[in-house]
């Protein structure tokens, strides 16, 4: 963007300090007595977060409580931050399942590719932001933790409905 040099043409007789100060005082007084404040009283009040909010992950489960994941390996492949560690296993009927499924939430950039690429709609990003922990280890979410999460999941962007209406 080009810089436009503007030269002020206001005559000096129109400038004031004392009168302008009183005008300013009136304006600040109006805000002082205005009961509408923009601050949210955080722990008691919370903003509604958007349906496409991308927060910490959640692994959805089948009716019998097992993770939906089939250990296809697409999410660790697509992950640009390389934060998903997946070790596949196979049971007696030849169904694949994850032996290890760790997500390092510190490395994660919350792009949502893993949710987009997942053929089973198993891994999801969550609509959630309160993630504080006391140590760094706790930010590596294992399969148990991912399935135990209960917060609502992120809705991916739908090209047919770009504004999410």
């Amino acid at each position, binding site marked *: 963007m*080009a810089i436009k040099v503007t030269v002020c043409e206001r005559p*000096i007789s129109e400038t*004031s300090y004392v009168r302008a100060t009183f005008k300013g*005082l009136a304006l600040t007084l109006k805000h002082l*007595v205005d009961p509408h404040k*923009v*601050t949210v009283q955080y722990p008691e009040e919370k903003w509604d977060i958007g349906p496409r909010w991308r927060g910490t992950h959640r692994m959805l489960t089948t009716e019998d409580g097992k993770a939906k994941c089939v250990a296809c390996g697409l999410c660790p492949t697509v992950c640009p931050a390389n934060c998903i560690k997946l070790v596949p296993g196979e049971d007696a009927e030849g169904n694949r399942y994850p032996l290890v499924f760790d997500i390092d939430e510190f490395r994660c950039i919350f792009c949502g590719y893993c949710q987009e690429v997942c053929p089973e709609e198993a891994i999801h990003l969550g609509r959630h932001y309160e993630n504080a922990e006391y140590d760094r280890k706790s930010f590596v979410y294992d399969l148990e933790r991912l399935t135990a999460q209960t917060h609502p999941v992120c809705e991916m962007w739908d090209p047919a409905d770009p504004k999410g209406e």
Partner: protein
Amino acid sequence: MMHHTSLLLQVASGQLPPTMGWFVIFAIIKMLVAFGIYLVCVAYTTFAERRIAAWIQDRHGPNRVGPQGIFQVLADGVKNFMKEETLPGGANKVMFILAPALAFIPSLVTWAVIPFASPLPVPGVGLIDMVVANLPIGFLFTLSISSLGVYGLTIAGWSSNNKYALLGGLRASAQMISYEISMGMSTVCVLLLAGNVGLNEIITQQASQGWNVMLLTMAFFIFAVSSLAETNRVPFDLPEAESELVAGYHAEYSSMKYSMFPIAEYANIITASSLMVTLFFGGWDIPFTSWDNLPPWTALKTVLTMGLYVGKVMFFVFTFIWLRWTLPRFRYDQLMSIGWKVLLPMALVYITVVASLTLGLDAAGVVRTGMGFKAAMLGMNLVFVGLVFWVLDRGRIVSPAFSRIQRAEIAHLRAVSERSDLSNQQGT
């Protein structure tokens, strides 16, 4: 005159000053109580500043510690005492440690001579003055002590061995010396009317003649602006201008030593507000009645006048805070030109006008307490206010940045700006 009548009435009602022993005992009690309350008020002014700042900016402010955050000041105090204290390697250790105290003490001492209520009769003891030290030269005392405040800031800046702190200290000394003069000059008018330098006498005079803000409006205006500059408050906070000088004179301070500077600032605000109230708004005087100014003194009178005094001071403290969150900071050249080219000549002209007018009215036989005197002073002030706000305040009080550009130069600048590559790229 009023003063003599009140003295006669005082003798007649048998309300006499206490003996020496009681005087000392009550002086100690007054010191402890008054300064205890004063320090609590200073602490709560910091809280008031944070809440009012927040409200002006459509926020809530600190409201978590205790109901509506009223214990925030205690939390801040504990925090400041627990914090790590640093001492810069190149600092002058003695001066560095001394400076916060030097900044704080003058404002505390000034407050000792300000009367805050009508005298309190104590049975069996006598009449106790509601002022910590009833100095007959009270006003001169405040002037001399308030000029000492600059030492704290200058020494803090100089001893820190930091270029920003030094610049802040230099600015503080230049600014406070400049505004000290117009501040002193504006109060000369008060002395002209009161004919006395005792603060209690100035209050008595205002009770009989009407408040000085009506009689000496411009003196009040000059005094108010100068005390903003003396307390280093926005728009005169150049000594600590954080956008240019990191934190100015207290850049190197930490922990409670840092905290002493804000405390000194708020103590100065309360002291300046008390002085404004005492010199121009009748001190503890209740307007429209002389009931509170005449003996016999009662405890009820003391309580009511003290309440009104506190109310007046609180209003001015609020105004200081309100102004801070309204106005931007001056440029340095603006600051100096306001002090030397506007306020000082204005104060000198005003002294001459007030002196000639009172001399003329006295010579014409107009009684000072009468309506004629008040009307004449009020008329003179209206003319002055009109001159300042409608004639002088047209780019002459605070000159905007473009004021030094000539009209011909503006056309030239515009031509250059239109020829330049930068503006031709607009919209391409």
